[in-house]
């Protein structure tokens, strides 16, 4: 299976482990990821309000490249990139005034978007196109005994009419993946709440408070660590977790790892190969899984 691949700025920058693990998982499962040539940023969730036309235009630039590759699915590991592209397509199709403006801007550029290509989340592709049976068959080291909180966050789920993969109020895609690699999925009420990342630029304390709610929710539900589906959740829950711990004087951690990092571990890759964080590695060691 060949798919266009859009890592997104963060998976190419400060959360490179997401890119690394995603490629390993795809390779193991026989999915060929062809990186979109010279892709650009999706707007990071902030550009659309400042420049709705520009936002749609630059997202369509990526998708038009996908069409030129002869492909339709542009798979990304980042929920914000996913959201941005899908929302751009949605608005372009729904809003004739915006469409006209966007078409004006793309005139005389290489951007030619027919409406066929769209962004897909790597989790959707794993479940729908690869399938759980194939994933189960690729497991070399079942993660038995590991309690994994499944954190979905926002942008992969909502708005449901634009994302369209699963019920935004009771998702189970991540739980299905966790169960497939032999670990125990842990659900918790905050699993569809915001991680706080989008607040970090305007109300940092508020952002950290939301991150705390997720970590605490996972902990109260008895999880050893949590998995998430988004590069920006990764920055918030992994990289910035130390700030949350400072703010709330916590003496515990809740390691947050990307969904494909968990899969790759079960497929037999070492913690170093998937660039697993220190705290997560410690948990796996205690459980005797590495």
């Amino acid at each position, binding site marked *: 299976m060949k798919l266009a691949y859009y890592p997104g700025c963060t998976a190419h920058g400060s959360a490179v482990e997401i890119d690394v693990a995603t490629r390993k998982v795809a390779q193991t499962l026989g999915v060929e990821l062809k990186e979109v040539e010279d892709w650009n940023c999706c707007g990071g969730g902030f550009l659309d309000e*400042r420049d709705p036309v520009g936002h749609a235009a630059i997202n369509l630039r990526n998708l038009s490249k996908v069409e030129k590759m002869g492909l339709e699915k542009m798979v990304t590991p980042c929920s914000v990139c996913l959201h941005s592209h899908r929302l751009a397509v949605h608005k372009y199709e729904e809003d004739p005034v915006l469409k006209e403006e966007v078409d004006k801007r793309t005139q005389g550029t290489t951007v030619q978007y027919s409406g066929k290509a769209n962004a897909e989340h790597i989790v959707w592709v794993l479940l729908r196109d690869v399938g759980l049976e194939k994933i189960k068959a690729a497991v070399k080291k079942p993660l038995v005994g590991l309690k994994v909180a499944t954190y979905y966050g926002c942008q992969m*789920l909502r708005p449901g009419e634009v994302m369209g993969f699963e019920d935004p109020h009771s998702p189970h895609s991540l739980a299905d993946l966790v169960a497939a690699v032999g670990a125990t999925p842990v659900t918790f009420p905050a699993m569809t709440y915001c991680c706080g990342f*989008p607040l970090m630029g305007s109300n940092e304390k508020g952002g950290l*408070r939301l991150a705390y709610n997720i970590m605490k929710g996972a902990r109260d539900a008895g999880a050893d660590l949590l998995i998430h589906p988004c590069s920006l959740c990764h920055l918030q829950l992994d990289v*910035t977790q130390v700030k949350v711990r400072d703010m709330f004087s916590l003496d515990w951690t809740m390691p947050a790892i990307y969904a494909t990092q968990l899969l790759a571990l079960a497929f037999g890759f070492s913690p170093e190969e998937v660039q697993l964080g220190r705290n997560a590695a410690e948990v796996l060691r205690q459980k005797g899984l590495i």
Partner: protein
Amino acid sequence: MKELDKEVKVKVKRFSEEKGTWWQEYTVKVDKYTQMTEVLKRIKEEQDPTLSYRASCHMAVCGSCGMRINGAPRLACRTIALEEVDRTGSDTIVVEPMDGYPVLKDLVVDLTDFYNRMYKVKPRLHPSEDVLKGKSEHRLKPEDQSRLWKFAQCIWCGLCVSSCPAVRIDVEFLGPAAHAKGYRFLSDPRDTSFEERAKVLIDSAWRCTYCYMCYEVCPRDIEPVEAIKLTRTYTTKFGPTGDASSFGERHSKAVEESIAETGMLQGGKVYVKTYGLVNSLISMIELMKDGKATKLIMERQKKVRGIDELRKLLGEKQ
């Protein structure tokens, strides 16, 4: 029983001041048209007169029947019982009061907090003196009308506020419904209280976390988060009115600049532009404790080769 009739179980989270909280189950016959308000009505009329809930119009107009149905914030009158059975694959429909408001009895919650938020944005038009004195008429261009229409459809049901995470953690945030309403008047060319409205709305708009919960749950497709995004754009013209808007505006501008400069989002640079060098260094030192700082410093990002084309797409004058 008619051929199409089915029995469903309804599990209601009940509450009274005297007895506290308990769960109660009822069995009700429904057909494919039966709304959840009708289900509750049958329970109350035929089985248990002590059950309390609110409903009036049964057609998504009065806004009184907001509750949680199988975990989702919904209007009961817009929820068909058998569709819930299909959605969840279970014959039992779980009904709870809306989150985030004090429960008065069973499914009836106290919406005072919601109304207070709405009143803060003065939810009515403030016309000019001349219009009030009958010397001139209100005129609205069709394009303004079509822009404002969506945000004027709120039925004050409270579902969006009940599921908004920012409302829970930030007393200075007005919440989704008040922002939709506020924007509707802020950007109405007939309104005369622009400055006053801008002062109330702009800083609060930067306290939303873009989780799209309000977009998801609003039964009137109002998309409050879109109103919040539009309100933020007034910051550039009007100026920030508090910390959230001043940091936020700097941050968004830095994002925009980063994309226009390289085609990519350079997180580290954006952070420095938002918080200034000193604060960013303090953050770095904190992150170093966990060995995470190197990640932000080591960002190895390329510049998009098609940057000229990208700038054109972003509207740069050629």
